[in-house]
């Protein structure tokens, strides 16, 4: 399965090698489509491929490391 995710990195997590961890610890492949990382904060749009459970583990890992994970569409539950 494929998933498109928008990651947001808070200021405190900018120095951490979080993307490297995803590459090494999980059986998924991904491509970075767009990103903007600065001293203050950062974001990254990823296309992930792997089986559903493994992608779910990646999302949980990212969240446990303080990264916010959202669908690429942004919030779609509108007023």
């Amino acid at each position, binding site marked *: 399965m494929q998933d498109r995710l928008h990651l947001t990195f808070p200021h405190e997590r900018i120095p951490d090698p979080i993307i490297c961890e995803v590459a090494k610890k999980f059986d998924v492949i991904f491509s970075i489509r767009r990103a903007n990382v600065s001293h203050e904060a950062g974001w990254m749009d990823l296309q992930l491929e792997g089986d559903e459970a493994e992608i779910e583990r990646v999302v949980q890992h990212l969240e446990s490391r303080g990264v916010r994970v959202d669908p690429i569409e942004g919030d779609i539950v*509108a007023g």
Partner: protein
Amino acid sequence: MPHTSSLPQEARGAQHEEREPQEARSATPLLHLPTSTSGPSATPKAEVSSMRRLKGLKCRVCSETYELCPKHVCEFCFGPLEVDYDYDVIASVISREKIQRGPNSIWRYQDLLPVEGTPRVNLEAGFTPLVRADRLAKRLGIKELYIKNDTANPTWSFKDRVVSVALSRAVEFGFDTAACASTGNLANSVAAHAAHAGLKCFVFIPADLEVGKVMNSLIYAPHVVAVRGNYDEVNRLCSEIADRTKWAFVNVNVRPYYSEGSKTLAYEVAEQLGWRAPDHVVVPIASGSLLTKVHKGFGELKKLKLIEDTHVRISGAQAEGCSPVVQAYDQGLDFVTPVKPSTIAKSLAIGNPADGPFVLDIIRETKGAAALVTDDEIVEGMKLLAETEGIFTETAGGVTIGVLKKLAEAGKIKPDETTVAYITGIGLKTQEALAGRVGEPYQIDPNLNSFESALKDVLAAAS
């Protein structure tokens, strides 16, 4: 229907959409949801007209182009896709006179909307009043202020504009099921338009939504699915459902068409001002689609020489409890950090706004401003608009008026600027926000003495 299509016959035949590209996820069977087998069906390729008004879709970030199809994200950079027009073709058919002869709805601007034939999902949204607001202007120290009263729509919010465009296009693509995830206005509008057009309809809501809110959708008899879970979980699930079903999810797979509907809020204001753009507009921000499309709308009118080349300053309004765009603006950032919403302005409670970065660009480029108001100021804004102008808006309108007031007081709206505030939804849907805030009736007995003594109190209170 009073409206006859204003498009050249050739353009109507020029359908060249194709079956939605198979995405990896759609191979997964639909969970327990009834399957609508009818995704967009392949339409026979008509001869390509030499008068192609609609060129296709174009990525807002990297400019990659695509055929007109139900697709919303660029395959390369994941940027949002937008409808791409051939403005030379439009310039050759459009005129002020032609627009003025058109229907009293958004469809008088069909030459600038991504629908090819007679619009098939049409409750006559739009062409709402532009009210000169002298009493409010005086309070705020502005000379010329107008309220664009978009509470006067079929389901009482501006969402009828975007939904009518999205679903009319969706029917042209061959969809027979409309869907959305919404806690309020969007759900009401999708359900009503689907009912009117005989489309099947799925509406997803968070399970803890108040009964009163759900009623405004249930009356149109859509399938309402309540999702148990927190805000993020509901969002994520709905995004997955949108990916896996073959439904026209108005703010997901047909979002490029949906958001074009908001341009009509710029066209109408310009036409109602006698074909001139205002100097300054104040627009509420949720996902940011409305603000970006109001900007696009004024830009198109200039490009087509339907208005003078004036400069419109665009300012954005958010509630303090959900203000990711205003925070990024204040911090000088060009991207938005998502937040967890907590505000009475529920229709603006989008914590991760898809169009956030574009909104920031537009506000800066047009020399507008961005500001936020507290829940208390939202209620004050609702009351101020009602008391000075006789217009009862919902909490989102309270945000707009509160921010209008702040910007005027801070000198960011100059007294001599012709200013328009966009009031996008009605107060009857958010009455709970006013509990205990609008006073009580005087109680009297059924005799004149009682009335007279009450009248003394009334007059004393008024002086």
